[in-house]
């Protein structure tokens, strides 16, 4: 036996396949099987009355879903939410990181504050913000104090403002997370790049666009991919701020799937879940592809 073959067989014995079986089974049963079931059952007339006896119905559930104007709205809101929160989180995160990446004592206190919402539960944040945005809530009180009574409104009472607020809250919550990813990216950029640029008389804006940004692309990739996937899957904040996702105009895909599920339209709910999953995979893949091409080596 060659040396390599001995090594291979030693590896074979030392790290047998069964090591992965516990993880594979939990993951397969509780993540992959439901996806497979969704794929199959969304092509049937499965609903709460035909629980045990779904019949093949072709694309009917998908047609049903796509015909539903609420679904169209949900898709639109999902993308609106995902895209705007991604931009805001990256923008705010980057600004905070640029201001705070040097290790001063004061900076670390600010970082602690800006990161705090990331460890809290969205339920708490959501309930807290209903008190801020209520008709007699903190925000309207502050506007009153500032003499801006005409600006007061029922923030969660209409589509535009309530959508704007869920986007703001989500971005507020995760900007600190993006900040830390950017900080670790910034700290990895060698100082002498900037020194060399300074001696050659490059302005700080030029240094930012020619050195900082290109070298931050990997961090942007991480943030963008995570933000967009997380944003598309949004459920909690919408559900909590919109009173259990009752109103149809602020519906997103997850709350749409929940609503069809709770009225017993299981086929439609599965179709919506599958559409969401496919969209998330597609978008994260494209985004990753787009950014990876722009990454440069340090």
């Amino acid at each position, binding site marked *: 036996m060659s040396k390599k073959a001995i090594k291979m067989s*030693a*590896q074979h*014995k*030392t*790290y*047998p*396949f069964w*090591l*992965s079986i*516990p*993880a*594979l089974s*939990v*993951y397969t*049963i*509780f*993540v992959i099987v*439901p*996806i497979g*079931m*969704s794929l199959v*059952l969304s092509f049937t007339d499965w609903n709460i009355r035909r629980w045990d006896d779904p019949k093949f119905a072709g694309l009917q559930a998908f047609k049903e879903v796509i015909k539903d104007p609420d679904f169209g709205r949900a898709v639109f809101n999902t993308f609106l939410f995902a895209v705007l929160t991604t931009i805001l989180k990256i923008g705010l995160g980057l600004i905070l990181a640029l201001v705070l990446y040097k290790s001063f004592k*004061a900076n670390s206190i*600010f*970082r602690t*504050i*800006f*990161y*705090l919402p990331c*460890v*809290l*539960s969205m*339920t*708490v944040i959501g309930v*807290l913000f*209903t*008190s801020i945005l*209520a008709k007699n809530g*903190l925000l309207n*009180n502050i506007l009153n104090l500032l003499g801006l009574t005409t600006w007061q409104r029922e923030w969660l009472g209409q589509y535009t403002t309530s959508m704007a607020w869920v986007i703001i809250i989500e971005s507020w919550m995760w900007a600190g*997370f993006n900040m*830390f*990813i950017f900080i*670790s990216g910034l700290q990895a950029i060698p100082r002498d790049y900037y020194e060399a640029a300074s001696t050659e008389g490059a302005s700080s804006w030029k240094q930012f666009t020619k050195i900082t940004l290109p070298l931050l692309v990997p*961090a942007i990739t*991480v943030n963008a991919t*995570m933000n967009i*996937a997380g944003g598309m*899957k949004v459920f909690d904040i919408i*559900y*909590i701020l919109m009173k259990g996702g009752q109103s149809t105009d602020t519906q997103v895909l*997850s709350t749409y799937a929940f609503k069809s*599920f709770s009225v017993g339209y299981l086929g439609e*709910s*599965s179709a919506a*879940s*599958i559409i969401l*999953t496919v969209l*998330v995979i597609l978008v*994260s893949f494209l985004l990753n592809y787009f950014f990876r091409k722009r990454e440069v080596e340090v």
Partner: protein
Amino acid sequence: MKKKNNPVKILILTVVSFVYLIPIFVMVLGSFKTKGEAVRFDLSLPEKFQWANYEYVIENGHVITGYMNSILITTATTLIVLIFGALAGIYVGRRKGKLVDTVYNYFILGLTVSLQLATTFALLKSLNIYGTRLGVILINAGMQMPFTVMTFSSFIKGIPSEIDEAAIIDGCGSLKLIFWVLLPVMKPIMVTNLIVTAINTWNNFMVPLFYLDSAEKWPIPLMVYNFFGRYARNWNYVFVMLVITILPIVILYLCLQKYIVEGMTSGSVKG
């Protein structure tokens, strides 16, 4: 050489910090107010600190039950994820070949998938674990598994295999090697995954909302949401409930900040 922080910057940052801190202040102050004071939602101090609010909520908010459920669900999920994930991570990180690549890619597939509400419900029903904490634990663990396996395997790849070989020459068997040699070396990534899994599970709202039907099994986020629904007029109580919910997390965060931040961010960078 290094310049001091400039005061204008500090000032602006302080103002921005208030955007983060004011909601917290409103909540903490509100929790000590009377019902009437609390619904004014302002930053005034309470006339008299109403400690009785806390007594009332602890008695009526099922806080203890919620905590017990959260602790149970989080601990079990985290243990499953860490042990199963580490074993699979070692397999994927140390072996080479087609099968290993397939297993790895199969796990990676799960990084972006989202919860299949209706069919997961059907699955739990058919396994007879709908409405049980076990069902919630297993779903959480399954959803966390891809990330864990990925981070464990990439960490293992960075550990020189000489230490394994030395242990094997010393007569270590598979399990002994894994538990006595590899797992101790994997401590940093263990801490990362522990933190990520525990925080995700503790804060998860969707899974217990969908798959736990009785209040005595609810973890704390659901207790809060339900309490908010029942006491929507008693904002002082709602604020107490929120304070009680986040207090341990905030204390943990302030103490273990370095690990939490590093864990959560380094974990995602490796992704």
